[in-house]
């Protein structure tokens, strides 16, 4: 642990490197296969598969964000779905405005749901959302700002542990209720849907699908590298120190509240970006994304993959969601049994998640052989 963050990534983060390579390969192969191959080819990627995997990549990024705060900084956020959803709403608003006068009521400005709830004019927070750059900035900034205000207040008051978890849950829950309200101006329960174009290109065209997929892959890779840099830096070690010995870290002179706020905001913004990419691919954003259960599921992905490893989180998100898709179409009546059992089994037998299995196996063999890891045999080396 004496090397710098970048060297460390190159020399130590084998898992991460492998994961990034796979993702890079996917994000090049899948869009190309979708665009170029004939649909009867064995290697063709259908729009179904493409959007599905695009969704997984977004979830992967979301899990990455959660792992940054939870795995490294010990902040168990049960409300990260909120930032994801807010990012998604930002994108949704932009896409809504893109519909223009092609809505069912043909109103040039107001989205359909506003027309039929008798809005006279666009609410102020919808202004400017027809500009892509502005909408994107807002979609990242608003969740970031919310995370900042919320985090700073909570961390400054030293709200920790379950107390923090529960108020993050309360945060997302109250946002869910608020967004459910039709008066809020976000389409209530139905949310935002029926999108047409992005940047003037039809969302249903293969090219846009491919581009969105590629963007998801690329941004996931970038997000991963950013997170990896953070956790490999001394700030990352400080985060771990805060996680495991918060008050002790304070006595070393670190401003714990700022460390946490930093991690929280960074994580919220990554989650928001994931949300931004998610919405055009699944075609709808609605308040159930804020639901606490959704946020808990994110935690579950991270834990299944392997908390505190970053690549484990991404892997966990993809694996769990893949299995979910698979189970729900193959065993629609039974899939909860399988998924539930998966979670239980992972916790019981894979305390370090999927990515820890290999290490576990090695340890097991080592113990069986009575083998002693070099440099670890402290008892025989102490003293003198």
């Amino acid at each position, binding site marked *: 642990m004496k090397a710098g963050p970048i060297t460390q990534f190159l020399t130590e983060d084998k898992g991460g490197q492998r994961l990034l390579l796979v993702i890079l390969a996917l994000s090049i192969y899948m869009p190309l296969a979708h665009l170029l191959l004939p649909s009867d080819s064995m290697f063709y990627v259908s729009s179904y598969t493409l959007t599905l995997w695009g969704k997984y990549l977004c979830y992967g990024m979301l899990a990455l964000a959660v792992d940054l705060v939870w795995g490294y900084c010990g902040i168990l956020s049960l409300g990260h779905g909120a930032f994801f959803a807010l990012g998604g709403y930002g994108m949704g608003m932009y896409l809504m405005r893109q519909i223009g006068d092609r809505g069912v009521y043909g109103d040039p400005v107001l989205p359909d749901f506003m027309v039929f709830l*008798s809005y006279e004019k666009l609410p102020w927070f919808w202004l400017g959302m027809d500009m892509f750059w502005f909408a994107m900035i807002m979609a990242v900034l608003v969740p970031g700002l919310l995370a900042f205000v919320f985090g700073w207040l909570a961390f400054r008051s030293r709200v920790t542990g379950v107390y923090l978890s529960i108020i993050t849950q309360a945060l997302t829950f109250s946002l869910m209720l608020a967004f459910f309200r*039709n008066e809020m101006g976000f389409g209530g329960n139905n949310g935002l849907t029926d999108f047409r174009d992005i940047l003037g290109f039809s969302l249903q065209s293969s090219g846009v699908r491919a581009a969105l997929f590629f963007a998801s892959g690329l941004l996931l890779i970038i997000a991963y590298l950013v997170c990896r840099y953070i956790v490999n830096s001394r700030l990352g070690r400080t985060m771990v120190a805060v996680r495991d010995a918060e008050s002790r870290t304070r006595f070393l002179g670190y401003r714990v509240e700022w460390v946490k706020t930093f991690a929280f905001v960074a994580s919220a913004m990554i989650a928001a970006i994931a949300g931004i990419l998610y919405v055009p691919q699944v*075609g709808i954003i609605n308040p159930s994304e804020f639901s606490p259960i959704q946020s808990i599921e994110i935690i579950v992905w991270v834990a299944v993959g392997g908390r505190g490893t970053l690549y484990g989180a991404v892997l966990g998100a993809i694996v769990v969601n893949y299995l979910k898709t698979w189970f729900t179409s193959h065993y629609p009546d039974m899939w909860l049994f399988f998924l539930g059992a998966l979670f239980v089994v992972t916790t019981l037998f894979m305390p370090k998640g999927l990515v820890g299995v290999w290490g576990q196996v090695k340890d097991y063999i080592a113990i069986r052989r009575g083998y002693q890891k070099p440099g670890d045999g402290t008892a025989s080396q102490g003293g003198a």
Partner: protein
Amino acid sequence: DDVIKVGVLHSLSGTMAISETTLKDTVLMLVEQQNQRGGLLGKKLQPVVVDPASNWPLFAERARQLLERDKVDVIFGTWTSVSRKSVLPVLEELNGLMFYPVQYEGEESSRNIFYTGAAPNQQAIPAVDYLINELGIERFVLAGTDYVYPRTTNRILEAYLKSKGVADADIMINYTPFGHSDWQTIVSDIRRFGSQGKKTAVVSTINGDANVPFYLELGNQGVSAEDIPVIAFSVGEEELSGIDTGPLVGHLAAWNYFMSAESDENFAFIDKWHEFIGDTNRVTNDPMEATYIGFTMWTKAVEAAGTTDVDAVRAAMYGITIPNLTGGYAVMNTNHHLTKPVLIGEIQDDGQFSIVWQTPNGVIGDAWTDYLPDSANIIADWTAPVNCGNFNIRTGRCSGQNY
């Protein structure tokens, strides 16, 4: 291929499972029945069941899966409006065909969806007419869950009531969140609102699980159907099967179907259902009838078209007429909505409804309500020359189509 694939897109887990599982079973039953009769166009029907797990984005994903990967010929599915809205773009993009079996708020007509549930004018308006004309109601509480269906319905009703001369002060509107379980305050407000001397009724668009605690609270606070009747648009036999209906006797519901309807078609349907599900205590309800109508019409249309090709089937759908389960006939209109009768039922202590009123004729389902200014000008007609789901008769424009 030698099979015709029928996609079933209903939640089997999550909050909507309670309602939708039954519809999945209904489709399976109808498929089985059709296969016993020798299938369709000489091919067997093969159901493809998936579980979108009450998760709205998942509905779109599953729909895409059904159409693109499983290549189903038709989909029966969705319950909530949002799940339908989520599926809609996928259907339109891939030119799929879906039958939607639930009463809803209207304001929609997609080329790729046939709506076999009630539009507001097939449920809400007749219900209010009944309250005013038959029960002499003068004050109205419009209580609903806060989402699009109640919002729209209540807006329509409000406009309608005002057109009937009901004063603002005699209308109370109340929205509650999904799954609301503590109704004490609201019921007591309703009680107070109804004790001012004018005959009062509650028009309930309360959804799903929130109904049970609502009715329980009504019962416990001693609000009986004779004092303040509640007429509901989302409470059917299945919802009642989870409640002790003793205290609810006399409260009302408006539907196009009640299990208690005494017709031979209905008796046969119920018997078949009991046999299929293996439980004679299971009830039937309106969305099941809507599924039945949709399915039967589809088979008719496929036979008429001689193919399952979506465009051909669609063209064959218009004007198809089949007997309702309650007697009379259902007709598919070119706006993709049905003509069918409206029934008012009172809750009985055995969890059934007794039919106390019925429209003399079928009511034509209206996709775009006439009681809202923005919708009044819009019509849906999927035949030439209009060929549009949202055609503005004032501007002569067809807006909002993706193709």
